[in-house]
Protein backbone atom coordinates (compact mmCIF):
# COMPACT_ATOMS: atom_id res chain seq x y z
CA UNK A 1 0.00 0.00 0.00
CA UNK A 2 1.92 2.99 -1.20
CA UNK A 3 -0.16 5.32 0.92
CA UNK A 4 1.12 3.68 4.07
CA UNK A 5 4.77 4.34 3.44
CA UNK A 6 6.07 7.79 4.36
CA UNK A 7 7.67 9.87 1.66
CA UNK A 8 11.41 10.01 2.03
CA UNK A 9 11.93 13.35 3.70
CA UNK A 10 13.19 15.83 1.17
CA UNK A 11 12.00 19.18 2.37
CA UNK A 12 12.69 21.08 5.53
CA UNK A 13 9.70 19.48 7.18
CA UNK A 14 11.24 16.06 6.80
CA UNK A 15 14.00 16.89 9.24
CA UNK A 16 11.75 18.30 11.92
CA UNK A 17 11.19 16.21 15.02
CA UNK A 18 7.94 14.28 14.62
CA UNK A 19 6.83 15.34 18.08
CA UNK A 20 6.93 18.96 16.93
CA UNK A 21 4.74 18.05 13.98
CA UNK A 22 2.36 16.29 16.31
CA UNK A 23 2.11 19.27 18.65
CA UNK A 24 1.62 21.73 15.81
CA UNK A 25 -1.15 19.62 14.31
CA UNK A 26 -2.86 19.20 17.70
CA UNK A 27 -2.88 22.89 18.49
CA UNK A 28 -4.26 23.76 15.10
CA UNK A 29 -6.94 21.10 15.15
CA UNK A 30 -8.19 22.02 18.61
CA UNK A 31 -8.35 25.70 17.79
CA UNK A 32 -10.30 25.16 14.61
CA UNK A 33 -12.66 22.60 16.05
CA UNK A 34 -13.96 25.01 18.63
CA UNK A 35 -15.98 27.00 16.14
CA UNK A 36 -17.74 26.53 12.85
CA UNK A 37 -17.22 29.64 10.82
CA UNK A 38 -15.73 30.39 7.50
CA UNK A 39 -13.35 33.09 8.70
CA UNK A 40 -11.29 30.98 11.08
CA UNK A 41 -11.22 28.02 8.71
CA UNK A 42 -10.46 30.18 5.71
CA UNK A 43 -7.65 32.10 7.39
CA UNK A 44 -6.04 28.92 8.58
CA UNK A 45 -6.32 27.35 5.14
CA UNK A 46 -4.77 30.40 3.52
CA UNK A 47 -1.83 30.47 5.89
CA UNK A 48 -1.31 26.72 5.50
CA UNK A 49 -1.32 27.07 1.72
CA UNK A 50 1.50 29.59 2.01
CA UNK A 51 3.57 27.06 3.92
CA UNK A 52 2.80 24.05 1.72
CA UNK A 53 5.76 24.49 -0.65
CA UNK A 54 8.09 23.86 2.29
CA UNK A 55 6.57 20.49 2.97
CA UNK A 56 8.72 18.58 0.52
CA UNK A 57 5.89 16.84 -1.26
CA UNK A 58 5.44 17.15 -5.01
CA UNK A 59 2.10 18.43 -6.27
CA UNK A 60 1.13 14.96 -7.47
CA UNK A 61 1.94 13.30 -4.16
CA UNK A 62 0.08 16.02 -2.34
CA UNK A 63 -3.02 15.57 -4.42
CA UNK A 64 -2.92 11.81 -4.08
CA UNK A 65 -2.59 11.86 -0.32
CA UNK A 66 -5.19 14.51 0.31
CA UNK A 67 -7.64 12.82 -2.05
CA UNK A 68 -9.97 11.73 0.76
CA UNK A 69 -10.41 15.36 1.71
CA UNK A 70 -11.40 16.45 -1.76
CA UNK A 71 -14.10 13.81 -1.78
CA UNK A 72 -15.32 14.39 1.74
CA UNK A 73 -15.61 18.15 1.71
CA UNK A 74 -18.24 18.45 -1.03
CA UNK A 75 -20.31 15.65 0.52
CA UNK A 76 -20.41 17.34 3.87
CA UNK A 77 -21.22 20.64 2.22
CA UNK A 78 -24.28 19.12 0.63
CA UNK A 79 -25.40 17.45 3.82
CA UNK A 80 -25.14 20.57 5.90
CA UNK A 81 -26.78 22.72 3.29
CA UNK A 82 -29.78 20.45 3.41
CA UNK A 83 -29.98 19.68 7.11
CA UNK A 84 -28.02 22.34 8.82
CA UNK A 85 -29.35 24.80 11.30
CA UNK A 86 -31.49 27.24 9.46
CA UNK A 87 -31.21 30.95 9.61
CA UNK A 88 -31.88 33.90 7.42
CA UNK A 89 -33.84 33.85 4.19
CA UNK A 90 -35.03 30.52 2.87
CA UNK A 91 -33.69 29.50 -0.51
CA UNK A 92 -35.43 26.17 -1.12
CA UNK A 93 -37.85 24.15 0.95
CA UNK A 94 -39.10 20.65 0.46
CA UNK A 95 -40.48 18.74 3.39
CA UNK A 96 -37.67 17.78 5.76
CA UNK A 97 -35.10 19.42 3.54
CA UNK A 98 -34.58 23.11 3.73
CA UNK A 99 -31.80 25.22 2.32
CA UNK A 100 -31.46 28.64 3.85
CA UNK A 101 -28.86 31.32 3.81
CA UNK A 102 -27.81 30.21 7.25
CA UNK A 103 -27.38 26.60 6.35
CA UNK A 104 -25.47 27.53 3.21
CA UNK A 105 -23.08 29.62 5.23
CA UNK A 106 -22.59 26.77 7.67
CA UNK A 107 -22.02 24.37 4.80
CA UNK A 108 -19.29 26.54 3.36
CA UNK A 109 -17.67 26.86 6.77
CA UNK A 110 -17.67 23.11 7.29
CA UNK A 111 -16.14 22.51 3.90
CA UNK A 112 -13.30 24.93 4.58
CA UNK A 113 -12.76 23.51 8.03
CA UNK A 114 -12.41 19.96 6.74
CA UNK A 115 -9.64 21.14 4.48
CA UNK A 116 -8.00 23.35 7.07
CA UNK A 117 -7.83 20.57 9.66
CA UNK A 118 -7.11 17.74 7.24
CA UNK A 119 -4.34 19.10 5.08
CA UNK A 120 -1.72 19.78 7.78
CA UNK A 121 -2.40 16.44 9.41
CA UNK A 122 -1.89 14.50 6.21
CA UNK A 123 1.06 16.52 5.01
CA UNK A 124 2.93 16.41 8.29
CA UNK A 125 2.52 12.69 8.69
CA UNK A 126 3.29 11.82 5.12
CA UNK A 127 6.86 12.84 5.85
CA UNK A 128 7.23 11.04 9.17
CA UNK A 129 8.94 7.72 9.70
CA UNK A 130 7.14 5.75 12.38
CA UNK A 131 10.35 4.72 14.14
CA UNK A 132 11.37 8.37 14.42
CA UNK A 133 7.96 9.20 15.84
CA UNK A 134 8.34 6.46 18.43
CA UNK A 135 11.81 7.72 19.35
CA UNK A 136 10.39 11.19 19.76
CA UNK A 137 7.47 10.10 21.89
CA UNK A 138 9.78 8.14 24.15
CA UNK A 139 12.61 10.62 24.49
CA UNK A 140 11.00 14.02 24.15
CA UNK A 141 7.57 13.44 25.62
CA UNK A 142 8.86 10.67 27.88
CA UNK A 143 5.90 8.40 27.28
CA UNK A 144 6.45 4.87 28.64
CA UNK A 145 8.83 3.08 26.32
CA UNK A 146 6.99 -0.23 26.65
CA UNK A 147 3.85 1.19 25.09
CA UNK A 148 5.51 3.31 22.47
CA UNK A 149 7.77 0.55 21.16
CA UNK A 150 5.18 -2.16 21.58
CA UNK A 151 2.87 -0.04 19.48
CA UNK A 152 5.58 0.50 16.89
CA UNK A 153 6.24 -3.23 16.63
CA UNK A 154 2.54 -3.84 16.08
CA UNK A 155 2.47 -1.13 13.42
CA UNK A 156 5.33 -2.78 11.57
CA UNK A 157 3.31 -5.94 11.18
CA UNK A 158 0.90 -4.03 8.94
CA UNK A 159 3.20 -4.35 5.94
CA UNK A 160 2.90 -8.11 6.18
CA UNK A 161 -0.88 -7.94 6.24
CA UNK A 162 -1.09 -7.06 2.58
CA UNK A 163 0.68 -10.22 1.44
CA UNK A 164 -1.46 -12.32 3.71
CA UNK A 165 -4.65 -10.68 2.45
CA UNK A 166 -3.74 -11.58 -1.12
CA UNK A 167 -2.96 -15.17 -0.17
CA UNK A 168 -6.24 -15.43 1.71
CA UNK A 169 -8.16 -14.20 -1.32
CA UNK A 170 -6.43 -16.68 -3.63
CA UNK A 171 -7.04 -19.49 -1.17
CA UNK A 172 -10.72 -18.75 -1.16
CA UNK A 173 -10.86 -18.97 -4.90
CA UNK A 174 -9.02 -22.28 -4.72
CA UNK A 175 -11.51 -23.56 -2.13
CA UNK A 176 -14.38 -22.77 -4.45
CA UNK A 177 -16.04 -20.14 -2.28
CA UNK A 178 -14.93 -16.90 -3.85
CA UNK A 179 -18.12 -15.93 -5.56
CA UNK A 180 -21.17 -17.26 -3.79
CA UNK A 181 -24.11 -15.32 -2.43
CA UNK A 182 -24.13 -11.95 -4.12
CA UNK A 183 -23.49 -8.75 -2.13
CA UNK A 184 -24.44 -10.24 1.22
CA UNK A 185 -22.12 -13.14 0.46
CA UNK A 186 -19.40 -10.68 -0.45
CA UNK A 187 -19.82 -8.91 2.85
CA UNK A 188 -19.72 -12.18 4.76
CA UNK A 189 -16.62 -13.26 2.87
CA UNK A 190 -14.98 -9.94 3.64
CA UNK A 191 -15.77 -10.48 7.29
CA UNK A 192 -14.41 -14.03 7.25
CA UNK A 193 -11.25 -12.95 5.49
CA UNK A 194 -10.80 -10.11 7.95
CA UNK A 195 -11.22 -12.56 10.79
CA UNK A 196 -8.65 -14.96 9.33
CA UNK A 197 -6.28 -12.03 9.02
CA UNK A 198 -6.92 -11.17 12.65
CA UNK A 199 -6.09 -14.72 13.75
CA UNK A 200 -2.85 -14.77 11.75
CA UNK A 201 -1.88 -11.36 13.07
CA UNK A 202 -2.50 -12.23 16.70
CA UNK A 203 -0.45 -15.40 16.38
CA UNK A 204 2.39 -13.55 14.71
CA UNK A 205 2.12 -10.82 17.32
CA UNK A 206 2.40 -13.35 20.15
CA UNK A 207 5.58 -14.80 18.68
CA UNK A 208 6.96 -11.31 18.23
CA UNK A 209 6.19 -10.50 21.84
CA UNK A 210 8.18 -13.54 22.98
CA UNK A 211 11.11 -12.53 20.79
CA UNK A 212 11.02 -9.00 22.17
CA UNK A 213 10.93 -10.24 25.74
CA UNK A 214 13.89 -12.49 25.08
CA UNK A 215 15.76 -9.36 24.04
CA UNK A 216 15.14 -7.82 27.40
CA UNK A 217 12.14 -5.71 26.50
CA UNK A 218 9.48 -5.02 29.05
CA UNK A 219 11.56 -5.08 32.18
CA UNK A 220 12.03 -2.34 34.71
CA UNK A 221 15.69 -1.69 33.99
CA UNK A 222 16.38 1.76 32.51
CA UNK A 223 16.80 1.76 28.75
CA UNK A 224 18.93 3.81 26.42
CA UNK A 225 17.99 5.05 23.00
CA UNK A 226 20.21 4.23 20.05
CA UNK A 227 18.84 7.03 17.89
CA UNK A 228 18.81 10.46 19.53
CA UNK A 229 15.66 12.50 19.24
CA UNK A 230 16.14 16.12 20.20
CA UNK A 231 13.86 19.07 20.24
CA UNK A 232 15.68 22.02 18.80
CA UNK A 233 15.15 25.42 17.30
CA UNK A 234 13.71 24.17 14.04
CA UNK A 235 11.17 22.10 15.92
CA UNK A 236 10.23 24.97 18.18
CA UNK A 237 9.69 27.11 15.10
CA UNK A 238 7.21 24.62 13.66
CA UNK A 239 5.22 24.45 16.85
CA UNK A 240 5.28 28.24 17.04
CA UNK A 241 3.99 28.41 13.48
CA UNK A 242 1.14 26.13 14.42
CA UNK A 243 0.28 28.31 17.39
CA UNK A 244 0.50 31.46 15.30
CA UNK A 245 -1.80 30.13 12.61
CA UNK A 246 -4.26 28.97 15.20
CA UNK A 247 -4.19 32.27 17.04
CA UNK A 248 -4.50 34.30 13.85
CA UNK A 249 -7.48 32.30 12.68
CA UNK A 250 -9.29 32.61 15.95
CA UNK A 251 -8.54 36.31 16.24
CA UNK A 252 -9.67 36.98 12.71
CA UNK A 253 -12.93 35.20 13.34
CA UNK A 254 -13.55 37.03 16.61
CA UNK A 255 -12.82 40.36 15.00
CA UNK A 256 -15.08 39.56 12.08
CA UNK A 257 -17.79 38.64 14.52
CA UNK A 258 -18.31 35.21 13.04
CA UNK A 259 -16.74 33.23 15.86
CA UNK A 260 -19.28 30.84 17.31
CA UNK A 261 -18.14 28.68 20.12
CA UNK A 262 -19.66 25.27 19.48
CA UNK A 263 -20.55 24.52 23.04
CA UNK A 264 -22.30 27.80 23.68
Amino acid at each position, binding site marked *: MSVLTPVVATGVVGRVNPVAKLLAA*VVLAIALLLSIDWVSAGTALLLEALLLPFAGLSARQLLARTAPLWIAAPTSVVAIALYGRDGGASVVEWGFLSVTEGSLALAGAIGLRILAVGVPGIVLFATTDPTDLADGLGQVLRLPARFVLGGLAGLRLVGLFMDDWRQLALARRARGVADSGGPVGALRRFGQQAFSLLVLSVRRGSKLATAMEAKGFGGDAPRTWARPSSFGLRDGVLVALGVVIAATSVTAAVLAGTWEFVLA
Partner: protein
Amino acid sequence: MSTSTPENRSTAARDSSTGFTPKARTTPTRRWRVVDIVIASVIGVAAGVVFWAWGLAYTPIDSVLSFSGGFEGILNGGWLFAGVLGGIVIRKPGAAVYTEVVAAVVSMLIGTQWGFSVLIWGIVQGLGAEIVLAVFLYKSWRIGTVLLAGAVAGLAVGLMDTSFASAAAYAAGSKTIYVVTSVVSGTVLAGLLSWLAARGLARTGALSRFASGRSADARV
Protein backbone atom coordinates in the same frame (compact mmCIF):
# COMPACT_ATOMS: atom_id res chain seq x y z
CA MET B 1 25.80 -41.65 28.87
CA SER B 2 22.70 -41.98 30.98
CA THR B 3 19.62 -43.58 29.60
CA SER B 4 16.60 -43.76 31.82
CA THR B 5 15.55 -47.34 32.41
CA PRO B 6 11.96 -48.42 31.93
CA GLU B 7 11.37 -48.38 35.71
CA ASN B 8 12.70 -44.87 36.07
CA ARG B 9 10.59 -43.64 33.24
CA SER B 10 7.33 -44.98 34.51
CA THR B 11 7.90 -43.58 37.99
CA ALA B 12 8.81 -40.32 36.40
CA ALA B 13 5.56 -40.32 34.46
CA ARG B 14 3.53 -41.10 37.53
CA ASP B 15 5.18 -38.36 39.53
CA SER B 16 5.04 -35.83 36.77
CA SER B 17 1.87 -34.12 37.83
CA THR B 18 2.48 -34.21 41.54
CA GLY B 19 5.50 -31.95 41.54
CA PHE B 20 3.34 -29.04 40.48
CA THR B 21 1.75 -27.03 43.20
CA PRO B 22 -0.78 -24.83 41.53
CA LYS B 23 -0.47 -21.53 43.28
CA ALA B 24 -3.66 -19.94 44.48
CA ARG B 25 -5.14 -18.69 41.27
CA THR B 26 -5.62 -15.04 42.05
CA THR B 27 -6.67 -12.58 39.39
CA PRO B 28 -3.91 -11.88 36.90
CA THR B 29 -1.79 -8.87 37.68
CA ARG B 30 -2.99 -5.48 36.52
CA ARG B 31 0.36 -4.69 34.97
CA TRP B 32 0.61 -5.02 31.23
CA ARG B 33 2.92 -7.71 29.94
CA VAL B 34 4.82 -7.32 26.67
CA VAL B 35 2.42 -9.69 24.95
CA ASP B 36 -0.50 -7.55 26.14
CA ILE B 37 1.02 -4.45 24.61
CA VAL B 38 1.95 -6.11 21.33
CA ILE B 39 -1.40 -7.83 20.83
CA ALA B 40 -3.30 -4.68 21.73
CA SER B 41 -1.18 -2.90 19.15
CA VAL B 42 -1.80 -5.60 16.57
CA ILE B 43 -5.53 -5.42 17.10
CA GLY B 44 -5.31 -1.64 17.02
CA VAL B 45 -3.31 -1.56 13.82
CA ALA B 46 -5.55 -4.06 12.07
CA ALA B 47 -8.56 -2.08 13.21
CA GLY B 48 -6.90 1.13 12.05
CA VAL B 49 -6.65 -0.21 8.53
CA VAL B 50 -10.30 -1.21 8.68
CA PHE B 51 -11.15 2.27 10.02
CA TRP B 52 -9.41 3.85 7.09
CA ALA B 53 -11.23 1.59 4.63
CA TRP B 54 -14.50 2.24 6.44
CA GLY B 55 -13.84 5.95 6.18
CA LEU B 56 -13.39 5.66 2.44
CA ALA B 57 -16.55 3.63 2.07
CA TYR B 58 -18.35 6.05 4.38
CA THR B 59 -18.26 8.90 1.93
CA PRO B 60 -20.41 7.41 -0.85
CA ILE B 61 -22.79 5.85 1.69
CA ASP B 62 -22.89 9.13 3.52
CA SER B 63 -23.85 10.96 0.37
CA VAL B 64 -26.81 8.64 0.03
CA LEU B 65 -27.74 8.91 3.67
CA SER B 66 -27.22 12.64 3.73
CA PHE B 67 -30.67 12.90 2.29
CA SER B 68 -31.98 11.47 5.50
CA GLY B 69 -30.51 13.89 8.00
CA GLY B 70 -28.66 12.29 10.84
CA PHE B 71 -28.98 8.63 9.92
CA GLU B 72 -25.34 8.42 8.96
CA GLY B 73 -24.77 7.88 12.67
CA ILE B 74 -25.57 4.27 11.94
CA LEU B 75 -22.12 3.92 10.45
CA ASN B 76 -20.28 5.08 13.55
CA GLY B 77 -19.88 1.61 15.02
CA GLY B 78 -17.29 0.85 12.39
CA TRP B 79 -14.90 3.13 14.25
CA LEU B 80 -15.65 1.87 17.70
CA PHE B 81 -14.93 -1.83 17.68
CA ALA B 82 -11.17 -1.47 18.22
CA GLY B 83 -11.58 -0.30 21.77
CA VAL B 84 -14.19 -2.86 22.71
CA LEU B 85 -12.32 -5.75 21.13
CA GLY B 86 -9.03 -4.69 22.67
CA GLY B 87 -10.67 -4.29 26.03
CA ILE B 88 -12.21 -7.75 26.13
CA VAL B 89 -9.18 -9.57 24.74
CA ILE B 90 -6.51 -7.94 26.91
CA ARG B 91 -8.73 -7.48 30.00
CA LYS B 92 -6.50 -4.95 31.68
CA PRO B 93 -7.16 -1.35 32.69
CA GLY B 94 -6.57 1.02 29.82
CA ALA B 95 -6.80 -1.63 27.11
CA ALA B 96 -9.86 -0.14 25.47
CA VAL B 97 -8.41 3.37 25.32
CA TYR B 98 -5.02 2.18 24.13
CA THR B 99 -6.37 0.01 21.34
CA GLU B 100 -8.79 2.65 20.12
CA VAL B 101 -6.07 5.32 20.14
CA VAL B 102 -3.65 3.09 18.21
CA ALA B 103 -6.37 2.41 15.65
CA ALA B 104 -7.11 6.12 15.36
CA VAL B 105 -3.44 6.99 14.93
CA VAL B 106 -2.99 4.38 12.23
CA SER B 107 -6.03 5.50 10.28
CA MET B 108 -4.78 9.06 10.64
CA LEU B 109 -1.30 8.17 9.41
CA ILE B 110 -2.74 6.50 6.35
CA GLY B 111 -4.83 9.57 5.72
CA THR B 112 -8.41 10.36 6.41
CA GLN B 113 -10.56 13.37 5.77
CA TRP B 114 -10.79 14.20 9.43
CA GLY B 115 -7.08 14.54 9.93
CA PHE B 116 -5.87 15.07 13.40
CA SER B 117 -9.26 15.21 15.05
CA VAL B 118 -9.37 11.44 14.64
CA LEU B 119 -6.90 11.14 17.51
CA ILE B 120 -9.03 13.18 19.86
CA TRP B 121 -12.13 11.27 18.86
CA GLY B 122 -10.25 8.02 19.38
CA ILE B 123 -9.44 8.94 22.96
CA VAL B 124 -13.04 9.79 23.73
CA GLN B 125 -14.39 6.71 22.01
CA GLY B 126 -11.95 4.52 23.84
CA LEU B 127 -12.89 6.15 27.12
CA GLY B 128 -16.53 5.38 26.46
CA ALA B 129 -15.85 1.65 26.34
CA GLU B 130 -13.24 1.85 29.09
CA ILE B 131 -15.64 3.47 31.54
CA VAL B 132 -18.13 0.64 31.19
CA LEU B 133 -15.46 -2.02 31.72
CA ALA B 134 -14.12 -0.09 34.69
CA VAL B 135 -17.55 0.23 36.27
CA PHE B 136 -17.68 -3.55 36.31
CA LEU B 137 -14.22 -3.56 37.90
CA TYR B 138 -12.75 -5.41 34.92
CA LYS B 139 -14.34 -8.59 36.14
CA SER B 140 -17.45 -8.95 34.01
CA TRP B 141 -16.94 -10.13 30.48
CA ARG B 142 -20.43 -11.26 29.67
CA ILE B 143 -22.12 -10.27 26.47
CA GLY B 144 -24.32 -7.75 28.25
CA THR B 145 -21.30 -5.81 29.49
CA VAL B 146 -19.74 -5.88 26.06
CA LEU B 147 -22.89 -4.60 24.35
CA LEU B 148 -23.13 -1.85 26.91
CA ALA B 149 -19.53 -0.86 26.29
CA GLY B 150 -20.29 -0.57 22.60
CA ALA B 151 -23.42 1.45 23.30
CA VAL B 152 -21.65 3.94 25.54
CA ALA B 153 -18.85 4.35 23.01
CA GLY B 154 -21.52 5.08 20.43
CA LEU B 155 -23.10 7.61 22.75
CA ALA B 156 -19.74 9.28 23.33
CA VAL B 157 -18.97 9.71 19.66
CA GLY B 158 -22.52 10.78 18.93
CA LEU B 159 -22.31 13.58 21.46
CA MET B 160 -18.85 14.61 20.31
CA ASP B 161 -19.89 14.80 16.70
CA THR B 162 -23.04 16.76 17.35
CA SER B 163 -21.04 19.24 19.41
CA PHE B 164 -17.83 19.72 17.50
CA ALA B 165 -17.95 18.01 14.13
CA SER B 166 -19.90 18.64 10.96
CA ALA B 167 -22.99 17.25 12.60
CA ALA B 168 -22.93 20.16 15.01
CA ALA B 169 -24.43 22.19 12.22
CA TYR B 170 -27.52 20.02 12.10
CA ALA B 171 -30.90 21.06 13.39
CA ALA B 172 -31.98 19.58 16.71
CA GLY B 173 -34.11 16.81 15.17
CA SER B 174 -31.29 15.55 13.01
CA LYS B 175 -28.90 15.72 15.93
CA THR B 176 -31.10 13.42 17.99
CA ILE B 177 -31.40 10.94 15.18
CA TYR B 178 -27.64 11.03 14.83
CA VAL B 179 -26.99 10.23 18.48
CA VAL B 180 -29.57 7.46 18.63
CA THR B 181 -28.33 5.74 15.48
CA SER B 182 -24.82 6.09 16.80
CA VAL B 183 -25.73 4.25 19.99
CA VAL B 184 -27.42 1.45 18.04
CA SER B 185 -24.46 1.16 15.73
CA GLY B 186 -22.09 1.01 18.67
CA THR B 187 -24.06 -1.76 20.30
CA VAL B 188 -24.21 -3.92 17.19
CA LEU B 189 -21.06 -3.20 15.24
CA ALA B 190 -18.78 -2.55 18.16
CA GLY B 191 -20.35 -4.61 20.92
CA LEU B 192 -21.79 -7.70 19.28
CA LEU B 193 -19.18 -8.07 16.55
CA SER B 194 -16.32 -7.67 19.02
CA TRP B 195 -17.76 -10.28 21.31
CA LEU B 196 -18.13 -12.74 18.44
CA ALA B 197 -14.65 -11.97 17.15
CA ALA B 198 -13.08 -12.46 20.59
CA ARG B 199 -14.88 -15.75 21.04
CA GLY B 200 -13.79 -16.94 17.60
CA LEU B 201 -10.21 -15.91 18.33
CA ALA B 202 -10.19 -17.80 21.60
CA ARG B 203 -11.40 -20.94 19.83
CA THR B 204 -8.47 -20.88 17.42
CA GLY B 205 -6.08 -21.03 20.33
CA ALA B 206 -4.51 -17.73 19.33
CA LEU B 207 -5.23 -16.28 22.77
CA SER B 208 -3.62 -19.04 24.81
CA ARG B 209 -1.49 -16.51 26.68
CA PHE B 210 -4.54 -14.52 27.74
CA ALA B 211 -7.20 -15.08 30.32
CA SER B 212 -9.71 -14.42 27.56
CA GLY B 213 -8.39 -17.44 25.69
CA ARG B 214 -8.61 -19.95 28.50
CA SER B 215 -11.85 -21.28 29.85
CA ALA B 216 -11.89 -20.86 33.58
CA ASP B 217 -12.45 -24.44 34.65
CA ALA B 218 -11.65 -27.02 32.01
CA ARG B 219 -8.13 -28.30 31.73
CA VAL B 220 -7.41 -29.57 28.25
